[in-house]
């Protein structure tokens, strides 16, 4: 399947989880200060491993950065 991961089109195996997507951008589930949204809605870290990403979904993996 094809998802948008942090704005880039990515191919993932069908049924790939949020955890897998996070790994793709270098984020491990035990990293602090990160969060994931799928289609704009937060997926709690505790459920990354068990939450499959729908085909075509927009996934955003974010971290703290410098800001006002």
């Amino acid at each position, binding site marked *: 399947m094809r998802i948008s991961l*942090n*704005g880039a089109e990515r191919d993932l195996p069908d049924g790939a989880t949020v955890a897998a997507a996070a790994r793709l*951008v*270098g*984020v491990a589930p035990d990293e*602090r*200060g*990160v*969060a*994931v*949204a799928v289609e*704009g*809605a*937060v997926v*709690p*870290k505790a459920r990354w491993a068990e939450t499959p990403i729908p085909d075509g979904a927009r996934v*955003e*993996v*974010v*971290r*703290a*950065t*410098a*800001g*006002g």
Partner: protein
Amino acid sequence: MDAPLTIAGEELGSRLLLGSGGFDRLDRFEAALAASGAEIVTVALRRVEDAPGGLYDVIRRAGARVLPNTAGCFTARDAVATAHLAREAFETDWVKLEVIGDRRTLLPDAVELLRAAEELVGEGFVVLAYTTDDPVLGRRLEDVGCAAVMPLGSPIGSGLGIRNPDAIELMRDAISVPLVLDAGIGTASDAALAMELGCDAVLAATAISRAREPERMATALRLAVEAGHAARRAGRTERVHHARASTSDAGLPDLTPSAG
């Protein structure tokens, strides 16, 4: 004794909040944070590829509270979604709510801001709302439950100081929750003035990060906030339009030399 600044029931040891934006190196940020004495530091959320990491750990190591902002959001919906993400990322329900109405001035949009504030308060967030210097809007933000109101002194990053001191004074009269001067602080006297006008705290970002020596400027702002706060409490002398002798003429000796 001076009551400490208290936001949403939390007592804070410093009246200077630090924005983490604009530093060119993380170690400079860390030094400035230490010098500032700030216990609250704002951060933004960005895609991990654009967010090098390390910042969160530096702030936690310093024992400061992370205050996520919603910078970059132009609608209530985006701001609310960003607050959700921040709550997940930082395990905090505090949020500095920014809803911008204009890309060039980065001024807030009153309508979307109020909408987002109401929604987030309803969801249990502790909302610190970045707003214009409009006392009526500020009061509305308080009325919908914001924990602090954060008026701008001048546009974000402009360093123009407080362009309308009267407005800040009117906000102080109108608002009971903590008032935090946000945006526009350029140097120490701006921060002192904010406190003299009745603000409870000051947030500085660019003033520190873009100073030639950020660490020293952090010290300067820490002192200035304390100075302004003390001056407010000390009750300044009134302004008079002509001179008022600080030395009395009573008992002035006559030192004219003898005529002879």
